[in-house]
């Protein structure tokens, strides 16, 4: 069970976005897809979506709920929420540092 999304390679970013998408409520595949596309403005292909879902599920960061009418909702697990929080805090510190340096005094 790994909390680090960095070793997911090209699935790291989709995985992060999927976790964000699942952070308020469980969603099924199509809902995740449209939500992520709305969040990031980038298209998310079905192959990438399910490759990332399979990895997240294998790491117990998300879990599947019983299917309703062929659609299976996914729910973020406690470990997933923890991993997401860690990632977001990490990103946030980078964001804050970048913005601070941009706005800071130009003299060196």
């Amino acid at each position, binding site marked *: 069970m790994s909390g680090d999304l960095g070793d997911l390679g090209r699935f790291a970013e989709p995985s992060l976005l999927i976790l964000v998408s699942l*952070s308020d409520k469980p969603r099924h595949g199509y809902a995740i897809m449209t939500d992520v596309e709305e969040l990031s403005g980038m*298209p998310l292909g079905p*192959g*990438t979506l399910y490759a990332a879902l399979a990895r997240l599920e*294998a790491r117990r960061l998300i879990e599947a709920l*019983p299917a309703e009418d062929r*659609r299976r909702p996914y729910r973020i697990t*406690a470990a997933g929420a923890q991993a997401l929080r860690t990632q977001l805090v990490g990103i946030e510190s980078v964001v804050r540092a970048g913005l601070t340096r941009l706005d800071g005094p130009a003299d060196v």
Partner: protein
Amino acid sequence: MHRLARAILSLYPTAWRERYRGEVEDLLRRRRLRPSDVADLLRGALDAQLHPQARPVLQLAVPASGPVPVSAMVTKPAFGMVESASLSLISRRSFLRRMLGAGVGLLSLEFLGGTVAFLWPGPAEGMGAEYSVGTLGEINARFPEWAHGTPMEFRPAQAFLVNVPAAKALALGEVADVTEPAADQLLALWRKCPHLGCMIPQVCESRSRFQCYCHSSTYNILGEKLERGPAQRGMDRFPVRIDEGVVIVDTRELISGPPKGVVTFRDSHPQDEGCS
């Protein structure tokens, strides 16, 4: 596009299909698929085959009543996990064999496609094609003089379309109005002079005969060689027919003009005169 996407789903490992196929198919049905989605599915298939660690573990959680807030989940461990029995996965060997088979199949398909495309008749143009001139109504509208006997120049086939009864009347100095000749009353005379291949101009007004610019070979309005000029036969012609009301000139077949001296129609002028 959807059919292609569904076909790609069969390239995924069996275990993956058992677990995800239904929901992915449902997703594909809702989405307007783009070519990039299909390519993405294909990449996903390759990924699923190559990365066994990414293979799904079937684990179903007991559904929670309503959405669970993130804060609660951080502290509350997931519960009710059910590990499934080991799933039958495709072996490396059979995967490689399948990929080889797919590769060979794709190659032979390409080869077959290329061969068929090569042998397929291309869009025919120029000499050797069938041309539709139009319906008789369209021809009369485009060239009203045709009903009174003047041959109509039809450039695509490099031919004069002759309305035989009207043309005969014109050459005899009579007034005719034949708007609907039968198919066997039509001639498509090739404009290339059978002597040395010069382009034969429209019939002259003075005698309603064809006369070649180059050596004055002279033909009556039906393309039959008269006495003047060196050509040894009448103007060559193409088969003409009327298909469902449309006049068709078939330039795939060239019919030699009648030999010099065979003249079935005499106009009102001396046989040894040209146009001037």
